[in-house]
């Protein structure tokens, strides 16, 4: 990987592909189709950076997250963590991997077991793999809860007694209690109101600074991603169409889809001149993919080649790669 320079990536995806077999149609007439949720994703996450994945629903970004968490095994390709393929890990090392990579999901109330006390939820990671005394466990709980900015008294309560922002803080505390190296954040603030969202985002950046964490953040909200991430990947129908440093992407988006996405993003700036949407229609189905570039049917700058050949991710600028025929070097 040329752009990684001298740094070894913490997480690397090499041609990662995930197909789900699905049945389409009636009972007997059904055909088996492949839902190509992720189709040949390549990217690498450097230690200490925040890697953002942007995309609309159906773009495969959630499946990416599940692959990284090893909730699914890729159909093809490899997910490497610190140089090791996580699909091949023996059980002892898998347990170690589970300690190093933690997750925070969008729906905080859904990710906390409603029947457990907060202290049990937060301490669960410690119980699973570590032999610790009760006193140690509760000490660790108290520390982490304080670090995420929650009062100690919530420990005795149940999730339903907390507000949305507090629940998300509990989820962060649980993810952080074993001091992981990487956090996967799947839409961590999408369900929160603006004022609470700011609190959680600030907490996340404090945590990163303090513990030197690596983040992988999945979101549909470009504002949040732009605020958090250092590197940004844009996904469309299972493929990464553009990836680069966040500032670069915002200033000079190359892929027509990225451009459309930024243009469609509502900005609370009344002086901004609003242009008509550049793309029409909706994201297609991952079951019936078009020939050639997947964005071609909606692309305002479609060329004949686009409906024939699927563009690959190529370096268009330093540390900025794009999968689009417009930027393909003919050589």
């Amino acid at each position, binding site marked *: 990987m040329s752009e990684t320079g001298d740094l070894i990536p913490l997480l690397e995806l090499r041609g990662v592909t995930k197909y789900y077999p699905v049945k389409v149609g009636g009972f007997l007439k059904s055909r088996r189709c492949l839902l190509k949720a992720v189709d040949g994703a390549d990217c690498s996450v450097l230690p200490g950076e925040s890697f953002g994945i942007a995309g609309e629903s159906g773009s495969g970004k959630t499946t990416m997250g599940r692959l990284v968490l090893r909730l699914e095994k890729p159909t093809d390709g490899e997910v490497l963590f610190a140089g090791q393929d996580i699909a091949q890990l023996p059980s002892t090392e898998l347990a170690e991997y589970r*300690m190093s990579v933690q997750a925070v999901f969008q729906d905080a109330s859904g990710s906390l077991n409603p029947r457990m*006390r907060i202290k049990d939820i937060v301490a669960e990671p410690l119980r699973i793999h570590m032999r610790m005394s009760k006193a140690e466990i509760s000490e660790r709980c108290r520390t982490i809860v304080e670090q995420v900015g929650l009062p100690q008294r919530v420990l005795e309560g149940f999730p339903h007694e907390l507000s949305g922002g507090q629940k998300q803080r509990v989820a962060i505390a649980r993810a952080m209690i074993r001091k992981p190296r990487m956090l996967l954040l799947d839409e961590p603030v999408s369900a929160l109101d603006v004022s609470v969202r700011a609190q959680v985002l600030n907490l996340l950046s404090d945590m990163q600074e303090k513990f030197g964490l690596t983040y992988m953040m999945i979101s549909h909200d470009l504002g949040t991603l732009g605020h958090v991430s250092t590197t940004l990947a844009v996904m469309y129908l299972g493929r990464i169409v553009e990836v680069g440093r966040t500032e670069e992407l915002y200033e000079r988006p190359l892929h027509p889809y990225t451009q459309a996405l930024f243009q469609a993003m509502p900005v609370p700036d009344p002086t901004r001149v609003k242009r008509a949407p550049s793309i029409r229609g909706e994201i297609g189905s991952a079951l019936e993919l078009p020939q050639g570039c997947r964005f071609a049917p909606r692309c305002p700058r479609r060329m004949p080649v686009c409906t024939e050949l699927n563009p690959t991710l190529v370096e268009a600028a330093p540390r900025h790669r794009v999968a689009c025929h417009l930027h393909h070097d003919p050589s």
Partner: protein
Amino acid sequence: MNTVTNGLAWARLGSGWRRLPIFPVILLAPMVIFGILGTHIAPYDPGATNPVNALKPPSWLIGEGFSHLFGTDYLGRDVFSRVIAGARASLTVSVVGVGIAGCVGICAGLVSGYFGGWAETILMRLVDIQMSMPPILLALLLSASLGTGLWMVIFVVAVVFWTNYARVLRGEVLSVRQRDYVVMARVLGCRSHTILRRHILPNVIDSALVVASLQLGAAVILEASLSFLGLGVQPPAIAWGKMIAEAKLYLATAWWLPFFPGLALVITVLGANMLGDWLRDRLDPKLRNS
């Protein structure tokens, strides 16, 4: 873990008066007391015959005070005492039967819902087969072939009712295992049995409770129907259904014979059903349609 579950289940029942299902408790309490204490509180020996005193209407209707509250039957036995004694068979069969059905059904539902595969296939086929027979017919068939007696009736009740738990629990498990906290538990590295015990079971046990309380009434009716048809517990044990069946010959002359055991039956079933409704409303609004 258990204290966590129970404590929370209790908390979710609401607070203050809403916490107590007053109406169902009023209906069920006497039946439970009758069932436990039975003959100890009955004014007469329920089996003691007294031909002289046969077929007497309720005493308070003919101005004889409280000597025979519900009258006497064709052998002169006190109907009130027999109704009290009959509670035991009814409650034992329904509670134990539904309990056994629950244990089997919950396990089957958990395993098939969580692991899927052949266990699920076999379970669903079994449920399908059993569902293609009216429950009462299945019960009749079983009692007819296996014979009668308390344990046989309990067995029949368990066989008839376990599929309901299995079906409901399987559905619940299928939905709960998709929730983020179960996914999260996998991310944390929990093993299957830990996930089932800590994360799934406590979240589906409410549904099982609701099913159990709604089935209690049905089980009481099933037991009574069997004993009405002559296939329930056998004499000298007393059952309400049997009492009603024996009263068929006296419809024109002694209305109290079928009326009071039936009333006891209705009160028990009503109490159980209302308890079930109350539990369902409190614990599991989702189940309201099932």
